């Protein structure tokens, strides 16, 4: 009896622990859904003191979202968060392995329990200002993005290993696009210092970064297309759009910026947006009233009933067994000395 109750006590304690963990959080968890203002700001970072984060949802049926995390960032995960994205890790590894950004991919296609498969995961990229995107050899929590650089997240769906699509947007700050070579060069240097693997790419092409400023958009974009994009017709179409459109609009942006230096940066564009409308809507739609729902409470009641029934049955059997051995088994002792 005693040992049995130890077992059920352990289980009980476990559940109590879970409940205790959840209880104080519920008011807190009510808030973050919407009420908490999204961190960072929409659009590209205005200067070299922040990290611009580009998240490409196109493979998941969305667009590209560009936001800025202001100030120095500890690692790629922090940049993503501070730019105002909602990030979910896996159950097993925590946030070290980023599984969902702004609730996508949805729970119907990815439970986020264990490491996501290599056929559907968020690939992590980085680039200095005006450079080509580089696939990060390190996880987001293992890499510190230099200030003024770009972090990119692009969902890789059904791609061959090693050919994840880069974020389909040039890693270029519009504000200093046509400006002096200085910031671009500095960005390149910083990129070289920032990541081990990113280093060679960025360092080998500093001039390209600086020179790229004069002819923004088109060429850069084309260069960033995944080499095997034509494998999928839809992809191809999408890429084509991405290729064509920038020809005009970034130019305009740049022009605008040039004409009005102090004017605020745009927070939206034909090929990217500063806020993830879809996600905001979902968050707003979700009922975050706080405490557990009626279904949850009912399940808890059912659980208590099941545990009670189990405990009672075990206790009864114990008592019956003890009674019968006390009555009958006295003379059938095992030989202890063998």
């Amino acid at each position: 009896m005693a040992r049995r109750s130890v077992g059920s006590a352990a289980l009980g304690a476990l559940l109590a622990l879970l409940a205790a963990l959840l209880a104080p959080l519920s008011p807190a968890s009510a808030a973050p859904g919407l009420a908490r203002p999204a961190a960072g700001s929409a659009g590209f970072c205005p200067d070299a003191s922040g990290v611009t984060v580009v998240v490409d949802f196109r493979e998941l049926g969305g667009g590209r979202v560009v936001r800025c995390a202001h100030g120095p960032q500890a690692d790629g995960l922090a940049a993503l968060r501070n730019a105002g994205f909602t990030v979910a890790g896996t159950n097993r590894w925590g946030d070290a392995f980023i599984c969902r950004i702004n609730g996508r991919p949805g729970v119907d296609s990815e439970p986020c329990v264990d490491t996501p498969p290599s056929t559907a995961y968020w690939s992590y990229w980085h680039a200095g200002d005006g450079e080509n995107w580089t696939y990060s050899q390190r996880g987001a929590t293992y890499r510190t993005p230099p200030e003024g650089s770009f972090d990119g997240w692009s969902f890789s769906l059904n791609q061959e290993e090693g050919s994840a699509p880069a974020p389909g947007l040039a890693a270029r700050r519009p504000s200093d696009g046509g400006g002096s070579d200085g910031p671009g060069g500095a960005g390149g240097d910083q990129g070289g210092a920032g990541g081990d693997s990113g280093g060679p790419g960025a360092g080998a092409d500093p001039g390209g970064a600086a020179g790229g400023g004069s002819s923004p958009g088109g060429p850069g974009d084309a260069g960033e297309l995944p080499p095997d994009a034509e494998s999928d017709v839809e992809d191809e179409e999408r890429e084509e759009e991405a290729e064509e459109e920038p020809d005009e609009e970034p130019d305009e942006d740049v022009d605008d910026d040039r004409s009005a230096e102090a004017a605020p940066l745009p927070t939206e564009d034909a090929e990217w947006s500063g806020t993830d409308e879809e996600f905001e809507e979902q968050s707003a739609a979700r009922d975050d009233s706080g405490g557990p729902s009626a279904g949850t409470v009912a399940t808890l009641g059912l659980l208590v009933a099941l545990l009670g029934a189990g405990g009672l049955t075990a206790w009864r059997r114990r008592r019956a067994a003890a009674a019968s051995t006390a009555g009958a088994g006295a003379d059938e002792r095992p030989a202890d000395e063998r």
Partner: protein
Amino acid sequence: MIEFDEVTFHYPDTPRPALRDVRLSLPEGELCLVAGRTGVGKSTLLGAVNGLVPRFTGGRLAGRVTVAGQSTEERPPQEFASLVGVVGQDPLAGFVTDTVEEELAYAMEQLAVPPEVMRKRVEETLDLLGIAELRHRALRTLSGGQQQRVAIGSVFTTHPQVLVLDEPTSALDPTAAEEVLSAVLRLVHDLGTTVLIAEHRMERVLQYADRLLYLPGDGTVRDGPPRELLPEMDVAPPVVELGRVAGWSPPPLSVRDARRHAPALRRRLAERPPPPPAARPAAPAALVAKGVSVAYGRKVAVREVDLDLFGGEVTALMGRNGAGKSSLLWALQGSGPRRAGTLRVGGEDPGEREPAEARKLVGLVPQSAADLLYLQTVAAECAQADTESSAEPGRCRALLDRMAPGIGDAAHPRDLSEGQRLALVLAIQLTSEPEVLLLDEPTRGLDYDAKRAFGALVRELTADGRRTVMIATHDVEFVAATADRVVVLADGDLVADGPTAEVVCSSPSFAPQVAKVLRPEPWLTADQVRRSLAGSAVAP
């Protein structure tokens, strides 16, 4: 049923054959007792019946062994499972499954007996051996007698025509041995099974044997009715000894036989009463135990035992298997668990001393004495014992030579005979010169001669009047010949304590054969009677 045709068997690397020119023909339905001293080849003979010898042991077998026309040469032991059932000395070592019922069914499953038949035979066997109430029990929780009966049942379910039993009762107390033997007898009488049984304690089996196979030690086997063979045998149970002393012919095989002659002998002995028990020396007790209790969890093995052991005295500790004898011995030595009670040996409590100190106060030879031995040679063991006891080098060896002369230094302890190994362990434990010596079942596997020699050795150890020896044993004949005092333990309680003759003669199960024959006079051994008669022959 069983035919041995000119069988000669050599173990590997031995010049002398273990069996030589054995020619035997055992008819159906007989109970054959295989007798002989230790190491004469009894187990070899039994193993040859179903081909385990030589297929398991190696060696060279010439000649032919057949059982019911099947030769062991042509078929492996597995194929004899339906013909020959073999039960070893330690039933637990031969169990394959965990519960009684499954163990009974195991052999039948191997032989593809149909399930319905199997079920029926298991039930029959449970009834036949009186173990029906044990059917669901785990084998490890059974007592020794119950295990032995299950082991017999487990080979019996295939309805073999021959049953081979190697020392089936040597580990059992007298009552359990009776249970096992009566089960065997039922198989012989009701079902006509041929039974081949080897047993050191011939007094338990001899009266039931139809035929005796006597191995004198040169590899041959003499075969004949017990009465014809007994006069020339060098091993004989006490009742036969008594017959020889009293000059009865034919020799009595059982207590019942002997009691027919007893009135005359009693009259002859009337004017010469048995020697009174030796007076207890006046010395203070060497060991004083008060309220000693041993419990394992909630099971009490020994309950509040008060016991004094005196120097110069040999005490026998008797009781059923599982009565708490071993637990008491271990508690008295100090290294076993003791729940309560006080213990004084020479003013100290061995339970509170370091093991090395405790063994200078109380020495214990455990039931499996070989557990104490772990070195490669006798000399190394002896040297180690001297170091352990901080004794001068050579003390252990000197003790060994006194007890069992002629053991080579280079001999491996495991190669010694049972008696020699016992002497070695005894010498090791005596090297530290404890005043109190405790022995747990030392006579297991000893033949009559070895037991007699061991008894003399024990008497010699206590001759100086300082040392005391306590022996836990089931062997009533050994107790009758050796012990001054008997203590009986039952279910953890001390139920009897007194001079040997007094305690032993009053109990039907603990009485030695001679006492049963000459009841109500308290004669214990044939030796006593012989000395008395010799004295009377001189006196008139």
